[in-house]
C-alpha cells in the first residue's frame, strides 16, 4: 500500500495500464511535456515516448474525433479535455459517433476509448473552468459516465474504464484532486463500473451523490448523527449505468432519500434518481424524495461560487426537513 491523493492514483493507473498494454495511449492538450495542467500524466512521456503520449493541437472535437478513429483501428486512447467546460465541441463527436458506432454497425465496430476531464467547482477558477454537466453526458445513449470520489476508486475505476470495450467518460472532481490521501495498492486492481459504493450505513435516510459531493454528504451525516439521525451515504461512482439496486435496497431500509448534486437543479442526474425511486419504492417512502443542488445559473466567478455549490449546512437542513416530514 502507498498513500496517494487522487492525482497520484490516476497517474498510477495510467502508468500500469500503459505498461501492461501497448495499445493504451494518452492524448490531449499539455499532457506530454507539461505532464498535464494538474500533473495527471507525470512521467508518461519520458517512459512511453511521443507515439503513445501526445500533445495535441488545441481542439476538443479533434481530440475526441481522432480518438474514435484510433479506437476503431485497435488502439485504446485515453484522451483528455483540459476542463469539462471546454468539452462542448467534443460532445458532437461523443453523441454522434463514439456512442453510436457499435449500434450503427450492428456490433461490427466498437470504440474502446476513455475521455478524461476534470470537472466541478470550488477551486476559485475562471469562467468555464467549474462546470458539472455530467447529466448531459449520461443522457447520451451509449456512453458510460464514471465519477470517482476517492483515490482508490479513481485508480480501480480508471483501469476498468480503459479495459471497457465501449466509450467511457471519466470525470474527475478537481476539488478532490489533492484534498486527501488514502492507502492505495500499488498493484493493478479494478473496480466494477456501474456499481455504487455504500460509504457508510445508516437507518433513517439515504444520501446519494457523486464526485465532490461525497465528502460533503459524509460531513453532513456526521453532523446529524449528533441529533440522533442515522444517515446512509451512497457514492454512485458511475452515474450511467445507474446502480438502482444499491440505492433502492437502501431506500427500503431508510424510507427517505436526499440526492446531493453540484450541477444546476433542473434535469440534473438527481432527477433520474428521484424518478426511479418514486416509480419503484413509493410504498417504502416516509417522505418525498429531496434534492440539494446547484442553481439554474451559469457557474459564477469565484466571489459567488460558495453560494452555487450545496454546502453541509444546506444538506443538513434538507435531512432535517425529510426527517421532520
Amino acid at each position, binding site marked *: 500500500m502507498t498513500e496517494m491523493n487522487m492525482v497520484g492514483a490516476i497517474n498510477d493507473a495510467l502508468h500500469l495500464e500503459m505498461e501492461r498494454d501497448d495499445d493504451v495511449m494518452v492524448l490531449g*492538450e499539455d499532457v506530454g511535456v507539461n505532464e498535464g495542467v494538474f500533473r495527471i500524466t507525470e512521467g508518461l512521456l519520458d517512459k512511453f515516448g511521443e507515439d503513445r503520449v501526445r500533445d495535441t*493541437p488545441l481542439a476538443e472535437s479533434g481530440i475526441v474525433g481522432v480518438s474514435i478513429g484510433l479506437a476503431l483501428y485497435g488502439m485504446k486512447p485515453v484522451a483528455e479535455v483540459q476542463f469539462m467546460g471546454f468539452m462542448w465541441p467534443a460532445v458532437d463527436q461523443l453523441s454522434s459517433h463514439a456512442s453510436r458506432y457499435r449500434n450503427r454497425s450492428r456490433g461490427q465496430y466498437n470504440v474502446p476509448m476513455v475521455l478524461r476531464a476534470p470537472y466541478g467547482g470550488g477551486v476559485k477558477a475562471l469562467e*468555464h473552468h467549474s462546470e458539472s454537466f455530467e447529466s448531459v453526458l449520461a443522457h447520451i445513449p451509449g456512453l458510460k459516465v464514471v465519477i470517482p470520489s476517492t483515490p482508490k476508486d479513481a485508480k480501480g475505476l480508471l483501469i476498468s474504464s480503459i479495459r471497457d470495450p465501449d466509450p467511457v467518460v471519466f470525470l474527475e472532481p478537481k476539488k478532490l484532486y489533492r484534498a486527501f490521501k488514502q492507502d492505495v495498492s500499488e498493484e493493478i486492481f479494478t473496480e466494477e463500473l456501474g456499481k455504487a459504493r455504500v460509504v457508510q450505513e445508516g437507518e433513517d435516510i439515504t444520501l446519494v451523490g457523486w464526485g465532490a459531493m461525497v465528502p460533503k454528504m459524509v460531513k453532513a451525516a456526521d453532523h446529524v448523527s449528533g441529533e440522533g439521525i442515522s444517515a446512509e451515504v451512497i457514492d454512485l461512482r458511475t452515474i450511467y449505468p445507474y446502480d438502482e439496486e444499491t440505492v433502492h435496497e437502501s431506500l427500503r431500509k431508510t424510507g427517505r432519500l436526499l440526492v446531493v448534486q453540484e450541477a444546476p437543479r433542473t434535469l440534473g442526474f438527481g432527477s433520474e434518481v428521484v424518478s426511479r425511486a418514486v416509480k419503484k419504492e413509493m410504498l417504502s417512502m416516509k417522505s418525498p424524495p429531496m434534492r440539494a443542488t446547484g442553481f*439554474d445559473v451559469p457557474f459564477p466567478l469565484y466571489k459567488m461560487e460558495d*453560494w452555487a455549490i450545496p454546502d453541509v*449546512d444546506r444538506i443538513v437542513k434538507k435531512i432535517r426537513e425529510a426527517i421532520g416530514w
Partner: protein
Amino acid sequence: MGIELEKPESPDMIQILDKDGELVGEEPDMDEETLKEMYWWMFYARKADEKALKMQRQGRMGTFAPIEGQEAAQIGASVAMKDDDWLVPAFRELGTYLERGVGLEKNYQYFMGDVRGNEIPEGVNNLPIAVPVSTQIPHAVGLAWAMKIKGDEGAVLTIFGDGATSEGDFHEGLNFGGVLNVPVVFFCQNNQWAISVPLEKQTASDTIAQKAHAYGFPGVYVDGNDVLAVYEATKTALKRAREGKGPTLVEALTYRLSMHTTADDPTRYRSQEELDEWKEKDPLKRFRIYLKDKGIWTERWQEELEKKAKKKIDEAVKAAESIEEHSVEEMFEHMFSEMPKDMRDQMEYLKRSLEEKEIEEEQVEIKEGFP
C-alpha cells in the same frame, strides 16, 4: 506526366522597427501625439499587468492571463481601430481593453472573481471576455454581417491566439467571413505557446497568415513586437473592410514572456535561452529607442509616465478592492429579461438558507477520516 505536390509558400514578415528600434521599413505617417499615446498605453498596460501578477501572488487576485511581451500587438491593433468599430476579444488583451476605454479597475475586478468587472462602459463597442478558445470568432462575423445589412459605418476586429487557429470555430468563422464578404479583421496574437504546446505542434503551416488564402482573402504576417508594423497592417485591413472589400487575417508574431496563466509554470516546457532571445525583442524597448531617436522620448517624460501609471494603478486597485459585496440577487439576475418564477424561488431559497445558516462547512471535520 506526374503531379507535383508541394507545400504552399508562406508570406514574408512585415517589419518597420527591428529589435533595436532601427527603421527597416516605411515609416508610417503619424503625428507625435499618436506616437506618444501608443507608448503610454503600452507602458501602462505592462505596469498594470505587473501589478496584477503581484496581487495574484499575494492572494488578492485570482487566476489571470498575463500579457507581458504582447503590448505592441495589443496597442497597435486597438489604436488602428476607430470608435465605431467593434472589438470581439478573447481573454489576454489587457492592453486593448485599456486603450479601448475599459477602466483598469474593471479588469482587476473581473480577475478578482467579480462578474461586474465584465461591464462595458457606455459608448465602448466591445464584447466581454470570451474564455473558451476561438468561440468568439464567429460572433465577430455575425456582428460584421449585421453592420453590412444595416449599412452602418465601421468594422469588427476579433482577437485570438495561435492555439485558437486549431479549433473548428476559427475555420468556420473565417469561412463565413469570406463567403459573406463582411467587414471583419481576424487578428491573431501569435505568442507561439498555447500553454505548453509550441506553434510547431499546433500547425504544420509555416505561418498562420497563409491560412487566410484557403478562405479567399488576404493574410498578412507582421512582427507583432513592432507596434508600427502592427498598426499599419491593422489599419490597412480595417480600411479594406470598411470599403466593403471583405475580411483580412492579420498574424502578429509575438511572444508570451510570462506564464499562460498564473497557474502555469513555463520553466517546465521552454528554455531560458528562448526566453532571453525574446526579451531582446521586447516591444517597449524598441519603440522607446525609436521615439528617443526622434526626440520624443526623454527621461523626464518617462518619469511623468511612471508617476501617472502608478497613480492610476493605485486608484484601480483601491476601487476594485473596495467594491461592495455581491447581493444574492446578482447570481440570479440577468438570466432573462424577466426572472421566471422558478428562478425566483431558487433565489429566495438561497437567501433564506444564508440568513439561517448555522454550520460553517470548513469547521466540520470528518471524525473517522474520509472513507
